[in-house]
C-alpha cells in the first residue's frame, strides 16, 4: 500500500485530503509543521509528498521544503498544492517546475478537485513504480 505524506499548515484541509486518499486505498500521514518535513520523511519514507506552498512564516516555504526534499532524498516525487496561480506576483505555473528551482512533479490548485488530485497522485505513483520497479 502506497504511503503518502501530506504537508499543510491547515489541519482541516490536510485531514480532508487524507480522508479522501485513504478512501482511495492509500496510507497517509499529516505534517502541519513544514520545517519538520525532512525529519518526518526520515522517520518513514513516503512514496510521494503532497506539499502546500505557502506556510505562515514564509510565502514560499513550500519551495524551500521541496528543494530540501530533493537534496536529501533525491527524486522523491512532490505534488504541490497552491492557493495562488501564475497570475499573481510570486505565483507560479507548470513552466516553473524545474529540478533545481522548483523540484516538484506537478501541482494542484486550491480549492482542490479531489478527482483531479486522486488522478494526479495515481499518475505519480504509476510513473514512480515503473521508474523504480523494486521500490
Amino acid at each position, binding site marked *: 500500500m502506497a504511503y503518502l505524506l501530506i504537508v499543510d499548515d491547515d489541519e482541516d484541509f490536510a485531514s*480532508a485530503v487524507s480522508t479522501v486518499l485513504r478512501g482511495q486505498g492509500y496510507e497517509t500521514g499529516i505534517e502541519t509543521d513544514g520545517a519538520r518535513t525532512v525529519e518526518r520523511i526520515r522517520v518513514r519514507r513516503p512514496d510521494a509528498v503532497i506539499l502546500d506552498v505557502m506556510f505562515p512564516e514564509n510565502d514560499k516555504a513550500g519551495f524551500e521544503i521541496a528543494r530540501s526534499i530533493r537534496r536529501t532524498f533525491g527524486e522523491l516525487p512532490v505534488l504541490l498544492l497552491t492557493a*495562488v496561480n501564475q*497570475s499573481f506576483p510570486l505565483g507560479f505555473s*507548470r513552466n516553473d517546475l524545474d529540478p533545481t528551482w522548483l523540484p516538484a512533479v506537478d501541482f494542484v490548485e486550491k*480549492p*482542490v478537485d479531489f478527482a483531479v488530485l486522486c488522478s494526479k497522485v495515481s499518475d505519480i505513483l504509476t510513473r514512480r513504480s515503473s521508474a523504480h520497479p523494486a521500490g
Partner: protein
Amino acid sequence: MALAGGASDDSAWTAYDLPLEGRTAEDRVPVSAQSDELILVRNLAWFCSLRWLAIAALALLALLGWVSSTLIPIPWLHLDPAWPSLAAGVLLLLNLTWILLTRRASRGERRALLARRSLWLQILLDLAVLTGVVHFLGSVLTFAPFMYLFHIVLACIFLSRIRSLVVTLSAMGMYLACLVLERTGAVPPSSVLSALALPAAHDIAPVVLALQFLLVAFVSLTVWYLASRLSSDLRRRDEELFAINRRLEAATEERASHMLQTTHQLKAPFAAIHANAQILLTGHCGSLPSAAVGVVEQIATRCETLTRGITAMLQLANLRSQAQNPPSPALLDVSETVRACLAAMKPQAEKRGILFEEDLSPAPALAVQDHVVMIIDNILSNAVSYSLDGQHVRVSSRAKPGGGALVVVRDCGIGIPADKLPRIFDDYYRTTEAARHNRGSTGLGLAIVRQTASAGSIGVHVESAPSRGTVFTLDFPSPGRKVHGIPADRG
C-alpha cells in the same frame, strides 16, 4: 456576458471593439534606475554630437577664409583658413579618439570608467581650442569671448554647481591667459576684423583691457549662477522623483507579497470547507439524506464561486496596480498557450458535453505570457459557460501576414444583445439572464480581459447575436505595432 433577448430583431449580429486604454506597447518605458555613470556616458555622447557641429562650423569658417583670400576678396575680413582648419582638426581627432575608445570599451562599467577619466581632459581640450578660436577671431572688441557661455551653460546642465564653477573659472583663466599673452606680445594679436584698423590687445590700455576681461567674467559668472541654480533645482527634483520611484517600487513589491498572503488567507479556509463538503458528498462519512446532499452541494458550489470571485478580484487588483509598470512582453507562440488553456478547460466543458473544435496554427506575437493565459482562460471559460449543453466551441489561431497573431473563439451560445455589448467589459456587469444561466459567474472575467488587453495593446473585437452565439477575436500585436478594430474571422 449578457443573455440574448427573444425577439427576432435582436438576433442580428452586432460588433464591438474594446477601446484600449492606458499606455501602449510603443510608449511603455521600463522604469529602471540609471546610474550617474551611465548618464555621464550618455551626456558625453551628446557632447560628441555637439562637437561635430563645432567642427562643421570651423570647416565652414576655413572655407570662407579660403574663398575670401583666393576667389572673392572681402575687404573688411582678414580670415586665415589655416587656424580654423587646425582647430577643426584637433576637435576631429578628439571626437574620433573618444568614439574609438568607447567602442572598444563595450561593457557599461568600462565605458563609465573611461567617461569619468576623460571628462576633464575633454573639457579642458575643448576650452583650449575655443580660446584659440577666440584669439584668432579677436579677443577684444568682438563678441568672440562670449562663446565661452556655450561651455558654461552646458557645464551647468550636466555637472554639479561646483564642477560647473570650475569649468567657468577655467574658461575665464584661459581667456585671461590669452589677453595677457597678447598684451605682452608673447603671441601676436589677431582679429578677423583687423582690416578695419580696430585696436588690438597690445594697443589697448591695461585698464580698458581689464574692464573688458571683467565684463566677460561678470557675464560668465552671472550666467553660471543662474543656469547652475536652475539646473541644480531641476536635478534635485529629479533625485526626489527617483527616490519616490524607488519607494513606489519597494511598496509594489511589499504589496505583491501582501496580496499573495491575502489570497492564501482568503482562499485557504474556503479550500478546507470545499474539501470537507466534497468528503460528505463522496460518501466518505457515510451516506447523506437526499435533502442534506442538496444543502452540501450548495455549500460546495458557493465555496467554488466565492473562491473564483476572490481570485478574480485579486487578479484584477494586481493587474491594475501593475498598470504603471507592466511586465515586459516577449515573443511567444500564442497558439501554444491556447492549446494549454484548452487542455485545462476540457474537463469543465466535457461535463456539459461541450466540444472544442481546434484549428490552431503557429501564431507568434509580442505579449506577456501570463496575460495571454488570463485572456484566453477567461474567454474560453465564458464560451463554455454561455454555450448550451452539447454545443461546439470553435477555437482558431493564426499568424497575421504583417506580423502578430489572431485568435478567434466562437461559441453558438446565448449571445449578447447589441445594447449591452459595450458594457460587458465593466466590473461586475452581468445581466439578470446571464446570471441566471451561469450562477457561478463573478462578473470580473471580461474586466480582467480589458485590463490585460490594454496593458499589452491587444485588440479585442466582439461580435454577437442573441441566441446565435458570440465571436471573440483577439489581435496580438507584432513588435512596434498597435492595432484596433480587427473584424472577426467568420470563416
